[in-house]
């Protein structure tokens, strides 16, 4: 994994533009809003470019990259703005790992344990209602971040 990228946060957004998971690794609770804003404003760029991945925008001290999965889930990656070149291959690798994390989390059959029989097949329903089962998902995302060299706060539980 690319040690040159300093991953600050990760956001997953459903095709309906609802947040699925907003994760940040600063460990400071007050950053929560910032990363929500980053993910939310990224949607502007996603919409502007319709189908895009790569650098969405750079601001203050961070750069935001975006990725759309085949099922139109958007993944937003926030990295620290340094003066280094960011290789797209590295970003793609992280995105793939994040995509796989999402994919594996979604494959958890217990997500649907209590679902009504007529529950829609749409995966986003499972996502948006981020129940406690998503602990596993968060853990996977944290693993990806750790692999990128991020010092993830223990178990990510600030509360």
């Amino acid at each position, binding site marked *: 994994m690319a040690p040159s990228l300093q991953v600050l946060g990760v956001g997953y957004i459903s095709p309906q533009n609802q947040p699925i998971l907003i994760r940040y690794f600063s460990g400071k609770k007050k950053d929560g809003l*910032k990363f929500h804003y980053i993910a939310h404003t990224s949607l*502007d760029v996603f919409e502007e470019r319709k189908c895009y*991945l790569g650098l969405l925008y750079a601001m203050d001290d961070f750069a935001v990259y975006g990725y759309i999965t085949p099922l*139109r889930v958007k993944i937003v990656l926030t990295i620290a703005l340094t003066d280094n070149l*960011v290789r797209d*291959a590295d970003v793609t690798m992280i995105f793939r790992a994040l995509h796989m994390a999402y994919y594996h989390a979604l494959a958890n059959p217990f997500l649907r344990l209590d679902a009504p029989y007529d529950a829609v097949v749409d995966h986003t*329903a*499972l996502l948006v*209602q981020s129940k406690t089962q998503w602990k596993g998902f968060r853990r996977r995302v944290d693993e990806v971040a750790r692999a990128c060299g991020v010092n993830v706060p223990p178990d990510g*539980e600030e509360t």
Partner: protein
Amino acid sequence: MNSYPAELIVQLAPVMFVAGLDSAANQQRRPQASGTSPPPPAPTAAVSTQGTAPVAGPSSGSKPERDPFAILAARLRDALASQRRPAVWSPEAVRKGKIFQVTFVDKNVQFPPRKLPPPLPEAGQQPQHGPNRSPLSPLHPSSPLFPDGLIAPLWVRKHTALVPSVFVLFLRLYEHPHPPTDTSDEEAQRVYKEERERMEKDRDAELAKEISQRKEGTNERSIKLTVVLLANRGMLDDPSLDSRLSNIRRRATLDARAALFVLTPVTQTELHEFVRSLQGALIDPALEYYTAHSKRVRRKRNRVQQNPSSVSAHIAGQHAPPLRPEGWTVRYEYKMACFAEFRGEDEVALKHFQDSYNALLGLFTSISGTLPARTKRWAEAKVLADCINIKICKLYLYNAEPSLALGQLNSHLRRFAELSIKMWGIGETTYEYWAWVGRQYRVFAELLEQGTLSVPPLTIPTVVPAIPTANTSAGAVPASASTTLASSIIGIGSLNPSTHLMHPGFYYAAAATCAEKRRARFLDALSAVEGADTEGVQQQPGPGFANEKKSDHLGTILELYTKSYELFKKFGPSLPGGPGSPILQPQDNQNQAGQAPVNSFSSGSARFPLWVAYRIALTYFASGRYDMANKFLERITKTYSLRREAWGPLLKPVLSTWYACSQRIGDIDLSVRLAIEMMLRGYPSLGIPGQVADGLDGESMSLNQDDEEDDIVEDLMAVFRSTVPTKQDDPVNVNVQDCEPLLDLSSALFWESTAEVDSPMAFQIALSVPQRENSEGSRVSFGLLAKLPITRVRLSCTPFNREEGVGGDSVDIVVDHESAGDNEVTTVQVVDVGELVYGVAKDSRECHGNAHLRWNDDDAIVVLKGIFHSQTPSDFKFTSGVVTIAEGRWTVNVPFRLDQQLPSSLTSPRWLVSLSPPKFIPMRRNNVSVLRIKEKRHDVNVKFIHEDHAFVDERFPVTISVTNMDAMELEILVDVLLQPSEDDSVNRIEFAGEQSTGLIKGVSFGALSPGMSAMKALYLTSMGSGGERVLDVSVQSKVKGASEIEVSSRIEHHARAQEHLQTFVVPVVWPFTFSHETTYSRRADNPGYNLGDLDTFEREYWDDMYGGEANVQTTVTSAEGRDSISVIGFKFMEENKTYSKLLHCSIAEETFPQELWPGDDFVVFSSLSLAPPENYFIDNSSSLPEPGCYEISWRRTTSMDDFVAQTRIRLPQIQPPPDRLIALMRLPSTVHLHKPFLLEIVLRNLHQTRTACPSVSLDLDASDAFVVAGLRLGQLPTLLPGAEARVSWQLYPLECGPVVSLPKIRIFNKRKSPATQLGAMSEVASGDADGEEEEVKIVDVRRDDRWSDGNDVESTAGAAQSEGSLVQRFTISVTPS
């Protein structure tokens, strides 16, 4: 950009001074005023339409249009001035377009002195002996830069405003008045001519003198002087003009090139053309001018670099240290950069600016501390550095290198921030630092903005990977596109995001953020100073504190954010019309609702502007302009809510701020509404007001969740207790869109999904505390409802139509709070609300219950249970509810909708089945919260009466019996649909006189009184094969007379036509089964072909020589286990007579009618003569077509119907076996003793190709009972294929007996063996050419019977036959005579 001297950042352009265009009047008046030999006006001048020299020149202001030269001058001024205005950003077309920066000056304008001697020394100082120097040089003691300044804006101004590169002088050419009209007077003509020449000469001399005076000034500075002489058009044709012009040029020592023009009053377009050509002619001298300056400066710089001490040596000993060599480098490089910029050489300018910048940086970083912090020179140098930075950025942008531009900005920020912190002690905790950073961002943003506004605009780059446009243009992001995404990203390579240029809105926002930080630091400093004051400690405020105090921080922040907001909107996604854009729909809603009071957020989905708008609102809030903040927050909230994208965490601070704002405004109702809305959205705390203050301290996006947050419920309670609503009598309605209801009502359940009118259906509604999650996804439990004084919950159940939506009156459940002691409150409360009835009188459309409406426990549930009835059919669901909160003098109704919840839930609703212990079962069916009430069914009994099976071909009767079991008289209509059968056979139904192969509609059974039945017969005729026939019967019932008689609403729905659908299946079987057995026999009586007989060629000639006879035995078996069948008729239907014809059929007419019981057999025998076609035997698999069929007329014995069914049994295909050489023996069946009879053998060569050579032998034993007359042994003629030979014997029977053996007859067919044929050559000598003899089978025609494969029936039946020998002994019966 106002923060910097305009001179240092403005785009430089070659400067042109234009004189003489003040106005026509001035121009005319001035020569007169100067008093240099004013020409006496000619007496005839009055008639001159040219008005060259009116005595009292009209003022140019009053009637400028009268004077063409005044108009010309004004137009020239406009044309010249509009070419180029001073701007920071110049589009390339302007920069490279040979366009001058025009300044209008007086003709006699003086240029600033080039060099001045040092000023006179003041008292007590040494007189200075130095060379004359420029008054702007740091070396000149009276210079503002003396002794160590770098460069002053004044220097730039000198070159832009005080000294031109070219000087254009507009002057009037003298024109003598027109000659006298009287041409005959030669004397007058001569006088006039002399006068004119004299005047012209004088005036031209004056003109030349004026020009040469002017030229002295310009020559001194190598400035190109160009004179434009204004003259009338007529002057151009004057023959003396050329000589006058050359005279003027010579006298004024003007240059040969581009120094003298003549201009006449022309049209606007021609004027522009002139201006263009003038500039085109002058651009080269201008560039030369600036190049000369550059060269001069370069020489000086080289001198400094070669001999650093040379500069400072002159003024050594001054009290202030002189400018260091590095300083001189900065100065000279800057000058060279400016001159390059004047010339429009961007690359050269960039290079010099960079050198200058680097040298300047060196000055700052030099350890010797040449620029101590906070000195005047330090401040000047800093400003210079910032300005050069902007220039470099701009030049990069000109050159379309945005990332280099941004990189320059970044490095500038980084280096100077480093210097600031490390060397000057101006760290991030100072407002000065943030003011400086903010200024950099702001100037950069302004530069970008100017660039994007210019024509053509500066393009902000977007990194778009090379996705195939075919995919993207379709607007879809299908899986195929996404696969290309993954591959294309690799192709982009790499990118430094920090040098990726964004649109100026981002930099304005960054500047605004810096301004916020600046304000926060200032407030810190202010509080420190004030704190010190109160404590009586004298604390020195930081430098610049007084200035900082004066600045309008909030105004600046607001201005920056507003600019940023506008730019974000401008550069935001342009969604409308984009195919496949995902959130068009909420956007449309928003546009309808979008009457924004302050800003219309009409760009819709743009989220960046929304964020900026929130910052603006916060700024308004911080500056105490709560009304503005209120408006903004209202719009923001509405936009967020309308979007329905569930970004709750973003809305929380907005609502919190708005809540604080509403409190500041004093809008109690609003604050109550907001508090409740926040509760509904699940924000347990306010986070106010500290959040707002923090929000502006530069931590621009912070979600404050401090521990000391106020509990919103307590806050609300305090409001309730201490205030009264504005309208005291009415309850306050708090209508909150798009958020979850206060109570979790997702489980309003009906036990079953459908019920009939008037039949009860149980329902349960569980009221519980909503369980929400915070942004990290962990469950948030909050005890909001425990403290909230909920007094009543009202739930409405509404009929709705799936297509039209909700409609109709609702029926309500009202649950009032009834306080219970702590011990009595259980986790699960069950309240029986009784019956909820829809459709009766309106006043009873409610049912009541009481419950303890406090949820102290997260798991606490109040289950309302009851029974629902409806008297009208419809769909019902609980659509809305109202929670009433009452406290003090407040009554607040919180309505909410139940039918707009999240589309799907992951947890099934649960139905309480047991209270102790509480036990729930999940309801997993579809739409548990919707009940469909159906109409009551008409009680109609439909029966089908028929036999248990039908026969194929039978007209099978089915009796449809409809019985009205209902209490009302019903009209019955019946439709019958016969489903197509699986095979292709076409079946048929008959019903009420109609016949159809499919549908028979609308057969009326009439009106049936209660208890009455009606029956009708349906006939089904099944063709084809057996199997099942499917009939759909639809019985429609309608209350008789429903349309005419007015019915009460109660039975209105019941009166509607109802349909009862029934399907029944009729098994169909064959009435008979049958089998065929076909044998073949040969015939010998036919003579075969006789080519000599003409009959052979007749059409009806029948030749069965090859075919013989076919005997078909058909066994018909009545279907086992079914009804007995009466066979009425049975006949053979001959169909195909070409190759076969019926010889005999065993059917006897008198046999029928005959009854067949199940399992009875009935055998029919038919023999057919066959005449297969010639090619029949060539192909072994061929067969002759079916010769016909048996038609059986029959009916069911028990049937009352006189219908006779007809079933056909087709005969099998006929396959007569092939033959080769065959001997057919003919003899009578019985002979009499001693009576001779003839035994004939017919030898037929039926082989298709081979010749036969038969020989015959008859062996007569002694024991034989016959006397034979005929051939005993002999060769028969050779038989060609198809030929036949006959051999006859006469026999006398000598014995009697039933079975008397005939003499042994053998026939051989001699063939050459293959070996013989092969060895014929060698064996010829031996003379043995016999070869092999093959015995030919003799067939007794009387008994011939074969299967289609050629085997004899008898032999296959088990008759012993000695294999390998064809020797047969035939017998005959001999009777006594």
